[in-house]
């Protein structure tokens, strides 16, 4: 049985900011509980203080603005899945969120939690990163916007200060982009990804049948200490512009030079590297050639 910790239950964002600013000891946010409670049951010393933010309704909405979509940090995975504009234009995000945990987990877990957890395998992270998502954080005396690709320092580590909280995930609007997210896991349900990749791109077809790439964003999970953007490969592809088999082959080679996977319980370095290339190739072919 869990015991020996206390739970603070602020009822508004301002109260939360005040609480975390005055807390002297280390604490953890509790919202969905799908990670925090599992760790706490496993290790009684995981944390002595929980700050339960599940009742902060001001952070739980998904909204459309003029040039952005804003996901509140405590929005559940299920809410993201049900949000119509994402289904149409942000397929990578729905692809990724639809396989997180199980239905029972997706009804509890939150997007802010998936990000704050900072797992190199966090499923929603690569998909959001492939859309240049930004994180908004708040503290009693600050309000920061941080690119998601700059938010992580390593496994479980972020640039978040002890008195800061993630409040929003901001996704710019993209017109006529296509995107997809794919992963390799042990099985379909309740699996942690061995490798995952998300790509969003914009291209046009010329009258002579050639395909011209206008923009591409590539994000990769579980192949580095944090989810990464393959910036060099993106630049290379934009320079080449014309999409064909040859270009995809060269880009895949380049991509493999950008990743640094490890061997762990789920998979080994060699396999991860090989599969990262294959996932990338499959996504590009799905988005462009088919």
């Amino acid at each position, binding site marked *: 049985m869990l015991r020996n910790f206390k739970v603070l239950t602020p009822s508004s964002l301002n109260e939360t900011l005040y609480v975390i600013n005055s807390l002297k000891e280390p604490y953890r946010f509790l919202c969905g509980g799908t990670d925090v409670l599992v760790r706490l*049951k496993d290790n009684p010393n995981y944390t002595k203080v929980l700050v339960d933010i599940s009742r902060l309704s001001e952070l739980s909405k998904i909204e459309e603005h003029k040039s952005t979509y804003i996901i509140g940090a405590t929005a559940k995975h299920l809410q993201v899945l049900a949000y119509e504009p994402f289904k149409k234009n942000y397929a990578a995000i729905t692809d990724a969120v639809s396989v997180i945990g199980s239905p029972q987990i997706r009804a509890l877990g939150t997007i802010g939690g998936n990000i704050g957890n900072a797992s190199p395998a966090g499923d929603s992270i690569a998909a959001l990163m492939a859309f240049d998502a930004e994180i908004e954080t708040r503290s009693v005396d600050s309000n920061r916007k941080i690119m998601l690709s700059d938010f992580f320092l390593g496994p479980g580590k972020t640039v978040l200060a002890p008195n800061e909280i993630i409040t929003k995930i901001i996704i710019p609007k993209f017109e006529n982009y296509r995107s997809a997210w794919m992963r390799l896991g042990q099985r379909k349900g*309740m699996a942690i990804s061995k490798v995952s990749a998300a790509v969003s791109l914009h291209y046009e077809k010329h009258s002579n049948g050639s395909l011209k790439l206008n923009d591409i964003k590539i994000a990769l999970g579980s192949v580095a200490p944090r989810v990464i953007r393959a910036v060099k490969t993106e630049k290379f592809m934009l320079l080449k512009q014309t999409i064909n088999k040859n270009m995809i082959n060269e880009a895949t080679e380049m991509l493999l030079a950008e990743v640094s996977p490890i061997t762990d319980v789920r998979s080994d370095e060699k396999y991860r590297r090989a599969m990262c290339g294959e996932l990338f190739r499959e996504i590009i072919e799905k988005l462009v050639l088919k």
Partner: protein
Amino acid sequence: MPFKNFSEENAKPFETVAVKFKVNDEDISLNVPCHYTLLDILRYELRLTGSKEGCGMGECGACTVIMDGDIVASCLVLCTSLTGKKVLTIEGIKSDEKAKPIIDAFIKATAVQCGFCTPGMVVSSYALLKKHKNPTNEQIMEGLSGNLCRCTGYVRIVDAIHEAAKELNK
């Protein structure tokens, strides 16, 4: 899951919290230790022992209940997050006439062996059949992807859900 490394040192007096929520349409108002999960409250305080504790980590689905319309793992809902929620357990579902065909189909298809996963399976099936009147095999697998069964091999559970859907659509 019971706590690892449990020792006297960890067994300090705990704080209690007041929780107010609904279980099976009944108002519940309780003071419980702050480490209690929804599953602990159901089993230890309310004696609704249909929901089981399997893994205690949200993987097995034996503790599945419906909270505000969605199936959740009740072992991962801490009591402090419960205020204002509406919870429907297997005991509540049992009295809905729409659940009877599901339960009958589970028995008829021998979708039950040891029975430990069954309450969770029935809760997930009930939620699934509310969403999809005529679920495909794929929708059933997806709907049950958070429920583990180590006896049946799932085939008969899937059969039972198809059978229940037929009965419900009559």
